[in-house]
């Protein structure tokens, strides 16, 4: 097992729920509240130097009782060592967690993808928008286990929405304001955009 697991336990005590090993990879389960402190410690402490964020993703199990896991793969480039850090989120609670973008800019799109696919919100993320699905996508979070393989809406409804989509809805709020197109939008759409309710933008008839 990676010695960083014991070092973490010695430093953070109860915030490290447990450590496990699978196929030779060490996994450390971290309490949600301590995530940022643990990550900063792992990155900046001499002897740890996990300076490279390989990946951020999430796992939901088929067993509905198991919590959803947000998974961080860290690497120390100098020491050629990997460490996997996981945070467990109860599916019945709010799926919110601190963003690690202040530590690694590379987490920006990765966290957006986790938000897009799993509905986990990252507190402190500079620009938490959907990334792979379009911003007005209203069917939910595709990689959740309760999401049907072919989507929630019927094929006919999906086609209808795609054909009727308002082209302005493909621009974000700030983009529209750059082009001064914002003032020309219908008042109700402008109001919804202002409130951030992007998934409720009406489709033009």
């Amino acid at each position: 097992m990676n010695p960083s697991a014991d070092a973490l336990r010695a430093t953070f005590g109860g915030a490290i729920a447990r450590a496990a090993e699978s196929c030779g990879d060490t996994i450390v389960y971290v309490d949600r509240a301590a995530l940022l402190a643990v990550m900063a410690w792992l990155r900046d402490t001499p002897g740890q130097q996990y300076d490279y964020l390989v990946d951020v993703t999430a796992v939901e199990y088929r067993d509905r009782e198991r919590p959803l896991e947000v998974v961080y793969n860290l690497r120390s480039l100098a020491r050629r060592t990997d460490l996997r850090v996981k945070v467990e989120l109860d599916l019945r609670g709010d799926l919110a967690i601190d963003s690690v973008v202040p530590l690694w800019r590379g987490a920006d799109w990765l966290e957006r993808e986790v938000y897009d696919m799993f509905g986990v919100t990252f507190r402190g993320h500079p620009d938490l928008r959907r990334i792979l699905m379009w911003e007005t996508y209203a069917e939910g979070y595709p990689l959740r286990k309760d999401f049907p393989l072919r989507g929630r809406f019927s094929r006919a409804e999906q086609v209808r929405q795609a054909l009727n989509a308002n082209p302005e809805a493909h621009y974000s709020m700030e983009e529209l304001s750059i082009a001064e197109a914002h003032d020309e939008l219908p008042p109700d759409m402008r109001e919804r955009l202002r409130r951030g309710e992007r998934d409720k933008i009406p489709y033009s008839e």
Partner: protein
Amino acid sequence: MSKRTIAVELATPGLDPQGRPARIPLAAGVGPLEQYGEPDAGEHMLINIGPQHPATHGVLRLVVELDGETVVRVIPHVGYLHSGFEKLGEYRHYNQIIPLTDRTDYLSPMANNVGFALAAEKLMGIEITPRCTVLRVIACEMSRIISHMVWLGTTSIDLGAFTPFLWAFQERERIYNLQEMWTGARLTTSVTRVGGMMADITDDFVAGLRQFIDTYPKTLYEIDRVLTRNAVWVGRTQGVGVMTAQEAINYSLSGPMLRASGVPYDVRRDQPYLDYDSYEFDVPVGEHGDVYDRYLVRLEECHQSNRILRQALERLADGPVNVADPRMILPPKSRAMSDMEAMIYHFKQVMEGVKAPVGEAYVGIENPKGELGTYLVSDGTAKPVRWRIRPPSFINLAALPKMAEGHLLSDLIAINASVDIVMGEVDR
């Protein structure tokens, strides 16, 4: 104020009343612009590039805020090619996922096949055979060459050089012919299986690859001669889109993008998989982290891949390709039709799939675009709970706004090209 004049021959009469060619005075400096008021300072323009635009290398859409011709802000929009591969994988047996990996980074399908197979084998605890190891190295390096060739060709077109494109695509065509010889498919190779390969290579393939290895460097030297000291190429790439080593690490860049910034990290050498630790090859590292260095790094990697291919062919020994485990590897069709035991194994693999033990595994391999990670989580059934692709070009592309802001719009095209994205992988 000095005035210069040049003689122009106009199409219509073109002569002044004295019968001499008309001369137009050329003055430097002020013109009658003032009468139109102040120039439009501070007024920004929004332009939309893509998703259907040849210079975005796929269905990438960039919304760009411009101050004159200077890029103030880039807002990339991705997802137009989102196919839900990761979701699909949760409904497929491990071997059934391999055809999906072809379609992620479709410019290097064989390397993706290898990445997935390695992760599944780590999860199941399978040791592959020596011959299979060498075949997979050959697959990975062939992929690197074709991917870099596409990158070189398309990027040179973006920057105004057409000839290298033709040379590069010719070389790619030769590899495609070899891939077709090996797998029957040029693009969607699906060459690996969990525990082995879909097919062994033939003697013709070995001869063809050897011939390729001997003649390929000539093209690289030709491209080198046309581009590396070309004034236009140098002018448009040097000092453009710079990422320092610190920034490259902080943005999680990988592959040639990371190494061009001066971080000497190559998964093949630093966390070796297959038997890369026993090959002799150099890892090219850039100094400035600009578009030019990325070009140099990729060009040198092609030479190194060629070197690895040569060594791989030398050490290619006879022996079985697949592991000797009838629960993993499909029996030959003739045996499945004539032998009861083989038929049962065939049936169980096709209908039930190969079960993986409870656990999870992450394997990162050095793909042409960067580190391709495959993260598999199993709950003991024949289908993964989670199949995650760490997409190198997605993560590299995330640094595009950082690299492009402050440069000219034309530099944005060069920078975007230098990232080497493939939208099938960005959007998955």
